[in-house]
C-alpha cells in the first residue's frame, strides 16, 4: 500500500495528474471499521481538466511505462488494484480540492473528507451506497452542519432527507 501511494505521489510530481485523493470504500474505511473491498478508488484531476478533457489515458501510459499492468478495470500498482476515476462532477472536484492530507507509514497521501464521502454516497445512490451510508453515519466523525452545507450546495439535501430517519 505504501509503495502504491508513493507511485501515486510520483505521478503527481511528474504532472501526469494535477491532484489525487483516495475515495470509495478505502476512504470510508479510513473513518469506519474495515470491510472487504477489491479496489483502491483514486479520484484524479487530470492536468488538462480545465479544458474539459477527462481522459485517464496519460495515467495508464505512465504506469505502463513504469512496468505496471492492467487488471480488469484497474491497474495493479505494487500489488494494489487501483481504479482511477476522473473528477466527473463539481462535488468530486470540491472533494478532491478539500481532501485531508494524511501520513501512511511515512508517505503522505490524501483521503476525501468524511462529509464529502457521505455526500458522494448520497449522489451516487446505488444500493450499496445507501447501505454503507447508514453504517458510515454511525461510525464516522461527521460534522452535520458541514455535511448539510455540502448537500445543499450540490442539490442533494432532499435525497439525503429521505435517507435519514
Amino acid at each position: 500500500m505504501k509503495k502504491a501511494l508513493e507511485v501515486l505521489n510520483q505521478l503527481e510530481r511528474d504532472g501526469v495528474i494535477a491532484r489525487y485523493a483516495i475515495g470509495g470504500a478505502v476512504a470510508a474505511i479510513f473513518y469506519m471499521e474495515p470491510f472487504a473491498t477489491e479496489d483502491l478508488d483514486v479520484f484524479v484531476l487530470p492536468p488538462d481538466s480545465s479544458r474539459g478533457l477527462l481522459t485517464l489515458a496519460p495515467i495508464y501510459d505512465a504506469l505502463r511505462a513504469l512496468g505496471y499492468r492492467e487488471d480488469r478495470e484497474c491497474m495493479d500498482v505494487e500489488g494494489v488494484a487501483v481504479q482511477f476515476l476522473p473528477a466527473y462532477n463539481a462535488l468530486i472536484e470540491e472533494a478532491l480540492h478539500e481532501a485531508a492530507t494524511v501520513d501512511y507509514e511515512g508517505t503522505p497521501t490524501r483521503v476525501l473528507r468524511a462529509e464529502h464521502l457521505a455526500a458522494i454516497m448520497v449522489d451516487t445512490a446505488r444500493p450499496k451506497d445507501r447501505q454503507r451510508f447508514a453504517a458510515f453515519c454511525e461510525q464516522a466523525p461527521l460534522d452535520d452542519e458541514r455535511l448539510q452545507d455540502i448537500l445543499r450546495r450540490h442539490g442533494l439535501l432532499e435525497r439525503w432527507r429521505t435517507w435519514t430517519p
Partner: protein
Amino acid sequence: MSATNGPAELQRALERKQARRRLMAAAPFPEKIAVVVQLQARFAPILRARGQEYRVWRLESPGQMKREV
C-alpha cells in the same frame, strides 16, 4: 439463553458488537488495510470456486497513520 434473560443478553451482545465496531473504526489506517487484505484472502477461494475473479492485495507491514492538521 433462557426465555427470561433473552432480551438482556441480546442487548449485551449488541453493545459488545457496537464497542468492537468503535474500536475497529479508531484503529490506525494501516491496521485497517491489513484487515481488508485478510478479508480479501478469506473471500478469494470462495469466490474463485464460484468462478468469480477476486483480487488479493500484497501488503507491506502495517504501521501508524496520523492525520495532519
